[in-house]
Structure formats: structure tokens, C-alpha cells
């Protein structure tokens, strides 16, 4: 592994991690505040991409970058107001089920409206091509843009939560909703705002994730499980934790792909020769690069065993 490869992989890992952060920040807010494991979160991500695709055909990409997340946010808020709030009183399982149902509903609607195949949602001309070339490898503008948007988002959400009145109310409602309500704040409305805001963040990720990768009906399911890992590893409700976990997972996955060593090599180091006759050879010969995509889930399990509150989480329960 040389310096060139190291730098490029680090960049790739960080930019992928930042996209994961954009996706999971909304989820972690919603989860910590409302206790709702929002299964439809990545569906909002998908909606963001599809909305942006349609809007950008009419008014161009840059207005779509604003309009699409707002639309997704409004949809999220509406869903919270008229559906989630109603089932809230029945406990967490019905809440979980209703978001589960919503994810199917959105998937089918997207397939009905935009079809089952990939839509040609391309990058705007300003984002096409490389930003800079490093050791002969181009680093695309689109990826840099993801990084930029994610960082801007992190800073503004952090400022919103710590420096504004509504942010303080949200933080308070996060820990002691009854007390906040007793102080005269409209907690259900705060919930609606958080849910809508979380959905809008996912929508924003969809707008720029959709054209950097592909916009297709399977895009929601493909990131669905990984963002739960981010939220759990980072610590429930911790934005900074989600940030850290996203970067960690992004970099972990990127570098794991590059490592072609397997248990066979490890055995060789200690002087045991493993051949295809050895018991369990199919397992031993798996290289780290082959198991790269499941490493985050391994991390999830380990984290839950050894540090259930996550990296920066505060709650032990």
C-alpha cells in the first residue's frame, strides 16, 4: 500500500462517510427524541433523489437542491402529524410498524410514478468532471460537493441545536419531554418539526446522493441497514457520535476493500499451512476485501456487546 493509494482511499472513505452522516443525522435525531425507529428514513432519501430529478428537469439542479428537501420535509411533517402522532399513544411497536408500512408505500408509489428502472438523473454541468487530480487519479467534483454540503449541514444543525431557542427546546424535549411540556412548550409540534427536519435532511442527502450514485427504486433498501449501524455505533441521539461513526465506517469499508489477506495468511505467519483440503477452507480463504461490506455489521454487534451506549452516547438504557 503506497502513499498515493492511501490518500485516495482516505478521500474516498471520508466522502462516503460524510454521505452516511447526512443520511443518519436525521435518523438519530428522530430516534433519540421520539423513540421512533424510523424504517422509512431511507425512503425519504429516495424521495429526495426522485423529487430532485423531476424538479431539476423543470427549473434546474440548483433550485431543486433547495426545493426537494423542503418538499420531503413537508411530507415527513405531514406524516408525523396525521399518522405517527395518532399511533403514538399505542406505544413503540405500532409506531415502528407504521413507518415500516410507509417505506413499502413510498417504494411502490415511486415505482408507479417513475418506473422500476434507473432514471437518468445526472449531475449538473458545474459538478461534472474532476475537482483536482492527485497522482493521476481524479477526485470528482460531485464527491467534493457531498463533503461540502455535509459539513455545512453539520455546522448548521449544530448551531441550530445549541445556539437557538428552538434548538434548546428540542434538546430539552429530547431528555425530558414531560418537563418541557409542563413548562408550556408544545412538544407534539416540536416532534413534528424534528420529524420533518430529519426527513428533509435525508431528502437533501438524496438530492446529491442520487446523482452521484444512481437513482433507482432499490436505492432506499441499499442504505437502509447501514445507517442503523451508524446510529447505534455513534450513540443514540448524538449528532457528533453519528458524525464520528459515519467517518469510521466509511474509512473502514474503503480500506478493507484494499486488503487481500485472509486467515490463510495469518495461519502461515504462525507456521500452519492451510490448503483446500483443510477443514473449513471456504471460511479461512475469505479475504478481508470480500467481507468488507459486512464489517460495519460486525462493528455493530461488537459495539452492542462492549459499549451499548455507543461511541458518544449518553444513555445507558
Amino acid at each position, binding site marked *: 500500500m503506497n502513499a498515493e493509494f492511501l490518500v485516495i482511499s482516505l478521500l474516498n472513505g471520508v466522502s462516503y462517510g460524510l454521505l452516511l452522516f447526512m443520511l443518519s443525522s436525521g435518523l438519530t435525531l428522530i430516534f433519540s427524541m421520539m423513540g421512533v425507529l424510523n424504517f422509512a428514513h431511507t425512503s425519504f432519501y429516495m424521495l429526495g433523489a426522485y423529487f430532485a430529478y423531476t424538479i431539476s428537469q423543470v427549473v434546474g439542479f440548483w433550485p431543486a437542491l433547495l426545493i426537494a428537501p423542503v418538499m420531503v420535509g413537508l411530507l415527513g411533517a405531514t406524516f408525523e402529524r396525521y399518522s405517527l402522532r395518532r399511533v403514538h399513544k399505542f406505544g413503540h411497536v405500532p409506531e415502528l410498524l407504521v413507518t415500516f408500512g410507509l417505506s413499502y408505500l413510498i417504494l411502490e408509489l415511486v415505482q408507479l410514478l417513475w418506473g422500476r428502472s434507473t432514471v*437518468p438523473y445526472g449531475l449538473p454541468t458545474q459538478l461534472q468532471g474532476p475537482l483536482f487530480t492527485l497522482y493521476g*487519479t481524479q477526485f470528482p467534483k460531485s464527491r467534493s460537493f457531498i463533503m461540502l454540503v455535509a459539513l455545512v449541514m453539520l455546522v448548521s444543525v449544530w448551531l441550530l441545536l445549541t445556539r437557538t431557542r428552538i434548538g434548546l427546546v428540542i434538546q430539552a424535549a429530547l431528555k425530558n419531554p414531560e418537563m418541557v411540556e409542563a413548562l408550556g412548550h408544545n412538544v407534539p409540534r416540536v416532534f413534528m418539526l424534528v420529524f420533518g427536519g430529519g426527513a428533509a435532511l435525508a431528502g437533501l442527502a438524496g438530492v446529491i446522493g442520487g446523482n452521484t450514485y444512481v437513482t433507482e427504486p*432499490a436505492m432506499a433498501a441499499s442504505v437502509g441497514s447501514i445507517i442503523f449501524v451508524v446510529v447505534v455505533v455513534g450513540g443514540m441521539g448524538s449528532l457528533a457520535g453519528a458524525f464520528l461513526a459515519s467517518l469510521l465506517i466509511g474509512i473502514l469499508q474503503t480500506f478493507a476493500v484494499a486488503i487481500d489477506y485472509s486467515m490463510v495468511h495469518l495461519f502461515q505467519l504462525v507456521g500452519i499451512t492451510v490448503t483446500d483440503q483443510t477443514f473449513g477452507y471456504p471460511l479461512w480463504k475469505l479475504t478481508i*476485501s470480500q467481507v468488507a461490506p459486512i464489517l460495519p455489521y460486525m462493528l455493530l454487534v461488537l459495539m452492542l456487546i462492549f459499549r451499548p451506549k455507543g461511541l458518544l452516547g449518553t444513555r445507558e438504557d
Partner: protein
Amino acid sequence: MKFAMKITSAAVLLASATGAMAQKGETVKIAWLDPLSGLMAAVGTNQLKSFQFIAEEFNKKNAAGVKFEIIGIDNKLSPQETTSALRSAMDQGARYVVQGNGSGPALAIMDALEKHNARNPGKEVVYLNYAAVDPDLTNSKCSYWHFRLDADTSMKMEALTTYMKDVPEIKKVYLINQNYSHGQQVSKFAKENLARKRPDVQVVGDDLHPLAQVRDFAPYVAKIKASGADTVITGNWGSDLALLIKAANDAGLNNVNFYTYYGSVTGSPTAMGSSAAGRVYMVAYAHLNLPGDINRIVVDYKKKFNDDMYTGSVYHAFTMLSDAFVKTKSTDPVKVAAALEGMKFKSFNGEVEMRKTDHQLQQGLFISKWEKAGGKFPLDSENTGYTFVPVKYYEPYVASTPTSCQMKRPS
């Protein structure tokens, strides 16, 4: 006595006359068992439309005078679902079944039919496999009731490496495939064939990644780049191919050529677009701009659905069935299966033959290259303005591979 003779001969004549056209006007129900939901939904939907569309075309005019009816059932890409879908299709009176996505479901059908056909004489069902390319299906696991219309992985690799043999610029090859039977076989056959035909070529990477899980192929592209490869061979399809090529474009991997199996399948052309022009090759038994009858079908299909009819074996399925109906004067699957064995006919990819020993269609293969559409090749893929332009055609014998099939024929 004379009169009786006349009557008998008239009766015989009459009987043979009606016998000659016994199948005429019959409805042939074909069960289509492939995914309409999940990951492969887009591909499945396109192929179901292809079957329905070409059935309509054949219903207008076919030599056998039969009417085709397609019963499409979603098998969710699962062998278990496939078995129950098959049962339901047979209950609806289907005596022919077609399937193509995944060798798992394909094996499930072969297994189920072996049992069903042995236990229910007179109700046999024939299976036409239009796209599942696992070589085992016509080798160790071959079945009399299975007929493969696609070319299997080993045949395609044979043609692909025959082409690569004559490209001296190829020095370092990188293999990247999906980690399941198909991808593993592409990797295996690529290594075998290259070692045989181009021992000087170095295989600098052999990656297997999980099927349809990877969003970000940039790490793999960085790895390809670091390996110094000039050529990538991949059996990837769907988003796995689209994202791989997109990531390669983004990273400016301009000096690496991609040799693919499924470049024209739903999703990939859009991702490749203009930036992949001249760098992506495909090995297949067809391309979009074929001459003859199929050209009209591809054009009309695009007009009707604004989509590409890229599964040419669908056309072969109907051609072979109606030919067999004419030959046997019947739509009985037992007779038709016997007639399909060894059937030869002229098609868009040359003189093709359903090899009797293993029921693998021996056919010509094209190597085509992703280029701007126009001139002799006006039809583009997914309205991108680009299409796979054939650069080389290989006669059936080039791609033919031996079989180890010990066919058990019903007595």
C-alpha cells in the same frame, strides 16, 4: 367393397388432413417465472414485456397457427417462490415454462419438472431457460426437460478471450465479480481461458464483492488503479455494473477497458452514458441493431414502451416453439421436446443448433463496443445516444464448449 375402400381412403385422407393441422388454433400457455419485485424488478419487467410483446407479434402470424398466451408470475428471485409459482402456473394449464434470472430458480424448476414429469405422464412440462448461464445446468445437473437459449458463462468467456487474445495491448487483467455462483464462475473461467490463450497476461486482481450491496465502488476503482491493470473483466449486472463504471469514470480511469457480460441490461447504459464511450465491451449473442425480423420487433418495442428489447433469446424461444409445433403437428410438450433436440435454424446470430447431448443452444456470439449510435447502428440504449456496436462476430464453433452431461431421456 369398392365403395368401402373409397370411404376408408377418404376417411384416412380427411384424418391426415386434419391431423396435419391438429395444433392450429390451439392456445399455448407459457408460464413466465421471474422477478417483478425487489432488486431485479426492472430487468424482470423489461423481459416480461418482451415476452408479451413478441407473443403478440407471433400471434399475428406464425407457421404453426397457434396462439401464445403468457402467464407472468413474480418469483421474487427465490427458488422457493419459483417452485410454488410453477405449481400455480401448471394449475392454470401452462405446459411450457420460461425463466432466466438466476441459476437458483433455474435449478428449482429443473428439479420440480423432473419429478412432475415422471409422476404425471401426459401432463409433462418443458422448460426454456432464456438467460440463466450457469454451466452446471447443461453439465453435471443437466435435465432432458431443460433447454438453454442463452450462451453459458464458459461459452461467453471463450468468445471474449478469443477476442482478447488478439489485442496485444492487454497485459494486466483485473477481475471483479459478484460473490455468488455466476460471478465466481466468470472469475474461474476467465483465469482458465487467459492461462490457455494468453499465458503472458497477468491477472493482477480477483475481487468478489457482495451482490447488490455495494453503493460506493470508488475503493474498488482505487484498487484497480493501484494494481496497474489495463483491462477489467466483469460479469456484474444491474446497479453493480452501473456503479462500477460510474466510479471508474469519476476517478478518471480512462486507460482501462471494461469487458462485460451485461452492459446493455437495464440501468447500465444510463450510467455509462457518453463518458464510457469506447471503453466498455460486451459479449453477447445479440445486440440492438440486428438485421431482419428482430429489427422490426426491437424498433416497435421501443416505440411502444420507450425501452430496449435486449433479450434476443425471447425471439428464439417463440421461433423454436412454433417450428417444433409445425414439425410435430402438435403442441404436446413430449413431442415438442423431442423435436427441439438437435433443432437447427437460421437466426440473427447465424446458424444455431440446440445441441442434443446437453440442450445448450450452440450459437454465434458478438463482441460489441459502447460507441455513439448512428450509421449502420442507429438504435441507441436507454436513449443515451450510445449503443453497443459489434466489432467482431464469432461463429458458433468458436464459443462451443464440451459438455459432461449424461442426459437421462424418458423411456
